[in-house]
């Protein structure tokens, strides 16, 4: 396949809006392809396929959201066609809709953000049903008893061996940490209030859990860094906890050419104020810190007005949400591993808190000077569904659009944030970084997020001429073009044409196989035999994700030996 004459943005290879041809053969970008298939992309924007590094798209809590929200299911229903299966849902779409909608946006890769090992089979069952895109799942470790015991005993070798085993058991891709220690404390009705608040029964602190897991992550040379959901997330004044957490790990070095820590959906962790009355943005403080510390990265967690479904392993947060909103809610105890919760929410333009939250996400993205430290996300579906990504890009590219939006919001969005004074407007290169190149690099996917020779043949082509359209003024044009890719090409196959899905190949699933010294692995096995005998509700033989659950694996090797 040859893609002819497009205006290409490929930041990793330093291509900044050059008119050039691309060749794809056998699913990969090549110097020159044979064959007769030619795609005419003249006058169109061409970028690598989009990469979503953080979205809740598969597994137990996503399905709990679907079960809890039949009223969401009826929004966004699309009947089956000869090619497509039926779609349902807006904030919690069915598996098919997730694949189709990502593809229509020009996205070709998405990672599920939080899977307890115990529920990983369910996650993979759903990932297998998501068509078109490549996938992966981050595995939860921050409240796991084995982790807490290794941290308590100061046994880094055993911890690394357990992380490797956990990734294998869950067929997971990376280390996700959610409210470390808090999820365990919640099993007994408590929470941790800061990074030095001890976890009941284990005598460890969130600071120690984060540090040890980061050290284990780097000892294993995993492709992705630790992916952290901070303590006190969602609470006024939590930016201090966030900064304290980052300062606590400044001395840890990355084992690979990437960040040492990714702090996710930062919008929810950049709050000032002593309560909801004096709630305000501390995004400038957070972004300023990131501007001085390039070893850290974050994603936005941008809020989208309207319906959302919050879902997280941070169960005490969800219980608080449910009480505050008087909304329906779900809480789960994931045995020795985590807790979790789901609460639907409607974000309102005239709600002062929501309006400020909306502004904080944009402030973070625009005040962080190096776009490589920032990923555009909505923490789907916590901040809002991923189908709204074109809206977020339009906001990042147009100060005029931000002003138009601010005029419709509660006026505290202008008074308690710095957004009105921010002049920066991202260009297409920066957009390509925060939606493709950056997330691919941050996840550690060398074949994604760029169009160099050897890269996966994942390309998105949009019917917008970056040389003619002024995104600042014509933000509606930008949004409309990004919402319906002219072409989405997945592994060299056209999957979307004129905004419609035209082919439904099955993508692959990434997971990381990390090797560890046998002595450490044996000590972990001995612990696990005891834990399954004493505490787990199921046998270990029914616990591991077997190969049958991951039919198209893409295994990344890592480890200490």
């Amino acid at each position, binding site marked *: 396949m040859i893609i002819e004459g497009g205006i290409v943005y490929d930041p990793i290879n330093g291509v900044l809006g050059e008119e050039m041809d691309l060749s794809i053969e056998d699913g990969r970008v090549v110097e020159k392809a044979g064959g007769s298939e030619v795609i005419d992309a003249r006058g169109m924007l061409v970028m690598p396929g989009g990469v979503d590094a953080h979205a809740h798209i598969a597994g137990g809590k996503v399905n709990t959201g679907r079960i*809890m*929200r*039949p*009223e*969401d299911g*009826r929004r966004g229903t699309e009947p089956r066609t000869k090619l497509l299966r039926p779609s349902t849902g807006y904030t919690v779409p069915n598996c098919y809709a997730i694949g189709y909608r990502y593809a229509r946006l020009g996205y070709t890769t998405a990672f599920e953000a939080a899977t307890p090992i115990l529920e990983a089979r369910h996650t993979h069952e759903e990932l297998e049903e998501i068509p078109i895109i490549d996938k992966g799942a981050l595995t939860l470790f921050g409240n796991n008893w084995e982790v807490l015991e290794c941290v308590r005993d100061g046994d880094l070798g055993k911890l690394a061996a357990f992380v490797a085993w956990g990734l294998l058991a869950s067929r997971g891709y990376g280390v996700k940490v959610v409210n470390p220690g808090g999820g365990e404390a919640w099993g007994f009705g408590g929470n941790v209030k800061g990074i030095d608040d001890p976890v009941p029964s284990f005598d460890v602190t969130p600071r120690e859990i984060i540090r040890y897991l980061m050290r284990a992550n780097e000892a294993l040379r995993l492709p992705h860094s630790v992916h952290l959901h901070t303590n006190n997330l969602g609470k006024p004044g939590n930016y201090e906890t966030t900064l304290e957490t980052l300062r606590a790990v400044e001395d840890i070095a990355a084992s690979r050419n990437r960040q040492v820590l990714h702090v996710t959906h930062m919008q929810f962790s950049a709050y000032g104020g002593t309560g909801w009355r004096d709630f305000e943005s501390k995004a400038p403080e957070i972004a300023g810190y990131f501007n001085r510390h390039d070893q850290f990265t974050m994603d936005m967690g941008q809020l989208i007005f309207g319906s959302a479904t919050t879902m997280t392993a941070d169960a005490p947060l969800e219980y608080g949400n449910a009480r505050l909103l008087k909304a*329906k809610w779900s809480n789960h105890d994931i045995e020795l591993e985590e807790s979790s919760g789901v609460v639907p929410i409607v974000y309102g333009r005239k709600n002062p808190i929501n309006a400020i939250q909306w502004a904080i996400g944009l402030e973070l993205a625009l005040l962080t000077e190096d776009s490589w430290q920032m990923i555009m996300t909505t923490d789907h579906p916590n901040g809002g569904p991923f189908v709204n990504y074109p809206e977020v890009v339009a906001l990042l590219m147009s100060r005029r659009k931000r002003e138009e939006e601010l005029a419709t919001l509660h006026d505290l969005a202008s008074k308690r944030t710095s957004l009105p004074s921010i002049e920066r407007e991202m260009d297409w290169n920066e957009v390509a970084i925060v939606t493709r190149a950056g997330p691919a690099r941050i996840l550690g996917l060398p074949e994604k997020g760029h169009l160099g020779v050897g890269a996966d043949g994942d390309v998105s082509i949009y019917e917008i001429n970056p040389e003619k359209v002024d995104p600042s003024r014509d933000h509606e044009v930008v949004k409309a073009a990004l919402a319906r890719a002219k072409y989405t090409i997945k592994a060299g196959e056209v999957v979307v044409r004129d905004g419609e899905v035209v082919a439904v190949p099955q993508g692959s699933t990434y997971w990381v196989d990390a090797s560890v010294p046998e002595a450490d692995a044996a000590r972990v096995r001995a612990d696990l035999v005891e834990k399954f005998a004493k505490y787990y509700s199921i046998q270990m033989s029914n616990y591991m994700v077997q190969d049958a659950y991951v039919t198209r694996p893409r295994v990344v090797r890592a480890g200490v030996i």
Partner: protein
Amino acid sequence: MRNIVIRPRRHFRVPVEAERITPDLFAPLSIEEIRSLEVWEGNRRVALSELFDISGDEGPGRAEETQISLSGDFSRVKRVGEKMTCGRISVAGDVGMHAGNGMAAGEILVDGNAGDWLGREMRGGSIKVLGDAGDYVGAGYRGESCGMRGGEILIDGNAGDYLGEHLCGGAITVLGDVGDFPGIANRGGAIVIGGDAHLPGAEMASGTITVGGRARVLPSYQYVETVEIEGLRFKKFLGDLVEEGKGELYAASVEEGRG
């Protein structure tokens, strides 16, 4: 007023999804165009004329001045009058489930009985049923926090369970008896029941329920006083206390068994 008459051509063994039978959709169309509108019968998409005889005044006309007269057994014809915003539908006989779904204005009159989910998520207008109605009159869609928000439903006969579930506004009057849990999870609106009711107002946050007959009252309702309404004496309760609710429940007579 332009009158359009619809009669079933045969007995329906499976439900017909007839959300297209509304004054809004019919008004701009000629009779021939109405005949060619498509609906689903079970899993088959068919022209309206395949299922029904359609006759009446030739169009087009204004929706406000459109009357649709359904004559015959429509008990398996669902979603009649869905989302209508004006005009009138009269049913000489029974009508199936989901009649008047989400209607905003206009009028539906049913001579016979109505099926379940009558006036689900209704916003305005009026529905009158001379016979009985099924379960979930004026209720919400599954999972939705609001059912009916406005308008008026009057049922001369009895109604089934979960009458006015998640009611947020408007008024429902049933002259006969109702089943279990009328007004469950209400957040406004008014329900008047002429006959008996079982466990009214469970999880009610606000709104009023008046039971002219006997009511089995939940133990989470607090008795306040006896009041006189239009010459009749009612026991007034507040609840549902498990939801810190401020709903008002009036019952002419309270069934034994309350603690």
